[in-house]
């Protein structure tokens, strides 16, 4: 992140969809976007951990983000892809339905997530309204759910592994 971005209180987020919902994560945490490839399944893990995949020689877990957030598991299709992110020094891949855009938002524009949304499954850091790059001129703005990546860490319950 450049100092300029900090000065303007601006941050870049990557937006993507899960079902009909628009989500966003901080650009700074994103390592790469990969095509979906069937991961190697693991035993004794929650069903949203779809398995592990080979990221240039390191083994990273692949998470069904939709299922992880309590929605229906994603149905795979041609635009399904995996966002590889880094959370506290550990990498993980999140299966998302479709990557949308990279947008700049201001920190002041972020609204806190309503209290009712807070439970163990929720990982929403806040809500922000963004302009949608779409041909549908009637609906240029959309609500984007900003994800709290720390809450999505697969090791957050294990103190000795927590970063």
């Amino acid at each position: 992140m450049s100092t300029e971005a900090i000065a303007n209180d601006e941050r870049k987020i990557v937006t993507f969809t899960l079902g009909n919902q628009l989500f966003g994560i901080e650009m700074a945490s994103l390592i790469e976007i990969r095509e979906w490839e069937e991961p190697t399944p693991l035993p004794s893990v929650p069903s949203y951990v779809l398995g592990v995949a080979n990221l240039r020689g390191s083994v990273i877990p692949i998470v069904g983000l939709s299922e992880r957030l309590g929605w229906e598991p994603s149905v795979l299709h041609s635009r399904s892809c995996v966002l590889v992110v880094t959370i506290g020094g550990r990498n993980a891949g999140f299966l998302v339905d479709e990557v949308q855009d990279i947008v700049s938002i201001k920190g002041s524009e972020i609204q806190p997530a309503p209290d009712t949304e807070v439970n163990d499954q929720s990982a929403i850091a806040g809500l922000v309204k963004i302009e949608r790059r779409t041909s549908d001129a009637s609906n240029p703005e959309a609500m984007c759910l900003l994800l709290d990546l720390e809450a999505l860490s697969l090791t957050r319950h294990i103190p000795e592994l927590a970063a």
Partner: protein
Amino acid sequence: MSDELDEIQAIFFEECVEGLAVAEEGLSAMAAGDTSAGVIAGVFRAVHSIKGGSGAFGHTALLGFSHRFENVLDEVRAGRIAPTPEVTQCLLGAFDILSDHVSAAQTGGDAPDDGLMLEQLDAILAGGGAPAAQPEPEPVAPEPVAAAEDEFGFVPVAAPIIDLDADFDPFGFEPVAVALDDFDAPEAAEPAGWTVRFGPSRAAMANGGEPLLVIRELESMGGEVTAVDSEALPPLAELDPEDSYFVWTLTVPASVDERDIRDCFDFVAPDSLIEVVRAEDTVVGGAEPGVAAFEELPFEPVPFEPISFEAEPVLAEPVPTPAPVAVAAPVEAPRPAVAAPKAEAPKPEAKSGGVEVAQSIRVDLGKLDQLLNLVGELVIRSSILSDRLPPADQERVELPELSRLIRQIQDNVMSLRAQPIKQAFSRVPRMLRDLMAETGKRVQLETTGEMTEVDKGVIEKIGDPLTHMIRNAVDHGIEGPEEREAAGKPAEGTIHLSAEQKGGRIIVRVRDDGRGINRERVRAKAIERGIITADAQLSDEEIDGLICAPGFSTAETISNISGRGVGMDVVRSNVESLGGRLEINSVPGEGTTFSMALPLTLAILDGMIVRLGEQRFVLPLANVIETVQPEPGQVQATSPTSEVIELRGQYLPVRRVGEMFGLRSQRAPEDSLVIIVESDTAGHVGLMVDTIDNRREVVIKSLEDNLHPIRGLGGATILGDGAIALILDVDALVVPGGGFSKYVLKGLAA
């Protein structure tokens, strides 16, 4: 700047740790009765180098103590104090204080209270040494600093290169002033046997090397500085304060062993100019081109226009009676410590002077890991390449050659990480001494197999478990002297620490000859703590295993040493997280043995690739005994969920690996393969898989890097086609009672 300083400090402390290990080893050998000159000299050198570095880094408390310690060692080395058991014990005690000093200096903590120990050392010095022969306390005092700098008066000139005000002071480097008188009085007319030329390289200076210490050491053998060649000294404007420009010439009596002379240069970077030559010009230990020109050294003083050098460099022939010599050490001494260890070419004459000592280089472990990872990738890529070539090309000579080379690289990289397990054992003696002092128990330590080589990562990680096991053995196992004598045992308990390689594993054992585990008490305590129910039926082994249960402790009072009920739990989880197992074997009244079975390496595994449905798994070859293609009827059910295989009249349990992993396989046993594996948890067990692909070495990729450990898996690997195969942890898979599925992964309940 401060980064560089920290870096150099870090090197110093690493060297301290190594020095301490050497010293402890030597002192232990002395305590065991080996008081040969080599051993004592080794201890002396180790303490000496710690002292040298501590002075350079301004750790005055450490410097002060190590100096006094060194004085005593010097007397012992010179034979003026006999290394009696009492003296050795005191030296061991002093060593412990020295270790504390080092850690205090490293962590910036309070220096330990060394008053008592210093008194003891002084008492030894007073009692055993001949005061007349006592060496002058080395003038490593702060006072001469100013004098030395003033005298030469050119320190400020270096300011453009180093900001002395800002960086030099906090560094606390204290140049050592050498009394010129020291060189004035040759003590004997002994014919010069050796001519030693010594020119520290830039690298030596960058490492914080102190030429004066080397010269001192040579002097302590009777050597004398006869000349200083300052020809290389450039005009002041061009002077690089981080470099060294002087070459000292010393004569050393013929009676001194060449090896001892060479030993003096142990701590000097190998690219320094070091020549050891017989007076009759015989080059010993490696030809040095400089030797031929030695006699024609230019002896005129070099013009130093800008500098007013009071002590004029007078050079003399390398003859028995040396002329007074200008010792310019202080001039450059301050520089090396602030010098960045840049990889610049040393000055021309600083060739590796044919020194035949084993050279070593310090490498960051992370870099080795990276290298190992890359080599692993290389292996994978090369097998992908080979798979993609048409068969005719695969047979060509280049490909097998390439594979062989890669294999060799891999083996080499692996061996770089292998270290004797001694490193992990070395902290035990100290710990035992502390424990004895705390508990009043008497314990002697025996070790075997400490040269067993293990991956560095394993060594680092067994430290804590080992500490806990030793503490446990002393606190709970070994009885007090009276109790032992009453039981007909020697008053002094014994702890036996051993390491051996067995297959692909290393077995580390801690065996005590104490009272053994009191099973009744353990059971009662476990019930009291709610770990087991009052009516639980437990075997002896299961009761022993309870001491590793979280929160278990039988100690009546919580002592400093153990009894908080965290120790053995930590041991077990540490060992298991390494892919190892902990076993407890106890005989009441005779003692307890803790065995840790650990993988030899954390990086590469010899494995069998097996297939279950579409998924491939790696079975560690170390566990595999044989493979059976079952005949119809050879595998029979003993319950709806368990099966056995009949093998040469024996019935062995069979597990369907696929089912354990939730992979349904419709294969009949006859179409499958049963791999008989040996496990420590359940003896011989058959694992049923669909097929076996092949056997190969795989690079272990830890799941913890990005996820967390998963019971039943020893990690993952990347196969030739880039796909991931999970590595099976046989011991966890075959736990009796089919316990695999019942392990719920901690922390993933969400």
